[in-house]
């Protein structure tokens, strides 16, 4: 049996619940990424918050909060088989308990570690690489992360720039964090509306001045005698440069 869910983490956890209390599951996929199967039957699972919370509690108790977060980060990755890896890990994990995290050479552990590390690394990277511009009364940032990391970076920026009205826009997934005074939420922004929104929020001269100042600073802080563009590219791959003022 293959289970499909609505692409929310709680939806995935509901599937895990069904695996134990309804019938064993072979694979789990998000509804959108599932391409169909000839051999196996499949069924869509309605997200049930209560069931999901029971699974969440079990994970937190059986493993640890860190273990739960590792699974959540894995869920946010763009890997096609992430749901199956999570299922596999939990099946092993509920048998072995905390011990599983010491088994560094176990395939199911390796997958989870690898993916959660990737996602964690990208979200950490964007804590530094995100760039805001003053647009009207808002601080607006645009980026296109590989993984769906909005929910991981929201707390950091909301706390840091508490007094600001902030929009952090993931243009790859067409959604954004709206934040002000320590509160935030993630909101879908359809593509046609986002263009309309940006047109109406122009960049001021003051903003341009600070961008120029930053570019000037960026150029002069490098030591000519140690010029090393290869090393620079290791740290700032070209895919990130699109949104960085200093590389434009």
């Amino acid at each position, binding site marked *: 049996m293959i289970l499909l869910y609505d692409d929310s983490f709680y939806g995935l956890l509901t599937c895990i619940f069904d695996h134990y209390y309804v019938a064993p599951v072979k694979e789990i996929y998000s509804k959108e990424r599932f391409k169909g199967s000839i051999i196996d039957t499949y069924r869509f699972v309605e997200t049930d918050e209560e069931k999901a919370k029971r699974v969440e509690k079990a994970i937190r108790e059986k493993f640890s909060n860190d273990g739960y977060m590792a699974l959540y980060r894995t869920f946010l990755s763009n890997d096609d088989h992430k749901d199956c890896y999570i299922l596999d890990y939990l099946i092993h994990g509920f048998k072995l308990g905390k011990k599983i995290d010491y088994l560094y*050479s176990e395939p199911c552990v*390796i997958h989870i570690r690898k993916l959660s590390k990737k996602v964690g690394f990208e979200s950490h990277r964007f804590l530094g690489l995100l760039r805001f511009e003053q647009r009207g009364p808002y601080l607006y940032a645009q980026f296109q992360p590989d993984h769906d990391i909005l929910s991981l970076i929201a707390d950091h920026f909301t706390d840091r720039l508490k007094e600001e009205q902030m929009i952090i826009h993931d243009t790859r997934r067409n959604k954004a964090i709206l934040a002000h005074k320590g509160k935030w939420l993630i*909101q879908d922004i359809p593509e046609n509306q986002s263009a309309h929104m940006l047109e109406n929020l122009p960049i001021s001269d003051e903003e341009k001045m600070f961008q120029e100042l930053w570019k000037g600073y960026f150029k002069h802080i490098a*030591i000519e005698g140690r010029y090393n563009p290869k090393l*620079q590219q290791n740290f700032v791959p070209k895919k990130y440069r699109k949104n960085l003022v200093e590389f434009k």
Partner: protein
Amino acid sequence: MICNKYSNLTLAIKKIGQQKKNVCLQTYVLFAIIELGRKYGKFYLGVMKMLSDETMEKLTVLADAAKYDVSCSSSGVGRKNSGGIGNSQSFGICHSWAADGRCISLLKILMTNVCAYDCAYCVNRVSNDVKRASFTPEEIAELTIEFYRRNYIEGLFLSSAVEINPNATMERIVKALKILRNQHHFGGYIHVKAIPGADPLLIKEAGYLADRMSVNIELATEESLKLLAPQKSIKKLYLPMQEIKEGISHAKEEQGIYRHAPSFVPAGQSTQMIIGATRDTDQSILFQSEKLYNHFNLKRVYYSAYMPVNEGKLLPSLQTEPPLLREHRLYQADWLLRFYHFSAEELLSIQQPNLDMDVDPKMMWALRHLDQFPIEINKASYKELLRIPGIGVNSARRIMAQRKVQFITYDALKKMGIVLKRARFFLTCQGKYYGDSVISETHIRQQLVPAEAHHQVSLFELGAIS
């Protein structure tokens, strides 16, 4: 009208939060955002602040003057926003990387580059004909805040040349910090230089405002200092270090008694040494570092390959390449001191005063102590594991953890992500050795060092030729 209903994002967020499923409302909010933007946009366009056109010139001159300070860390302090702007993450955040590949995390800048001193190696020395500029404390604060808001930087690294005397310089630095911390309630990271010779009270004041302080030793020995920076002496440099150290331990005691006692330089102090401006050996540099770590509880010693910026009889010639590899090896050795339980004595001696440029310092040590290898992965203690070339803190921890539940095979080592390129010559797995043949220095070197070994010409060899 919608925009009246949602006079700012907070209200909008609240409204959407309450009625999560109301898609219609969500699109309204988008329009509200735009309407609001229009309304306030004009207002924002009108506000020009005190920074002017000449700011650009000052900024670039003072960044040029500050760039030879290598410290860039923004780690070591975790702090939440306290009602103003900014917080701090204990793991530190890099925001960009300059064309030389070094990370930019702080706005690294001098208050002024007008200097009374004449240190031979320094680009800002009084006898040099360079552009001079100064920022006011207010300008520094505004630049920091505006850069910080746009997430360009993690905080400020403020240093200064000594314009009139140490006290006047330190006073201006403290003033800038006060504006940031007390007026803007800035919670980001601040690294500040303690100017040697400044009043202890001023240094104390700065310490309560900053996260990290540093005093640059620059040269490892008293003789070198006498030669290149005759106005400085090691003793005078130790003085502010001692003051900072005492301040830190005093504040820690206080915090033990009163929970809300203010913290003093919570991210610790650091220093920097120039590599290759004088004949100092790696031994004297590393011994100096160890001494600084032990005596003053320094968090970091930075090494900076000497960039020939000035001409002088006592200095290497202007054509000299900066000894980048030597700098790298010193950093590696420094790591061995701090995280691998090595002592400087084990690595270098009078007979062997310099690090091996072909292999890393741990490999150098291991090749001299082949009698202690191979080490059995399944039995060795944590400290012994750390002595194996190629195995770092992470790998050693993983091995220790997995060993609790399972024997480790050679295959498992690979799967755990442990790099065996160097390590395989120095370990056994369940009794089996994987390093091809018998352990011997020539064999290992042949395997690891490419045939055309890298040779870095020393500055003084070059001097002899020209």
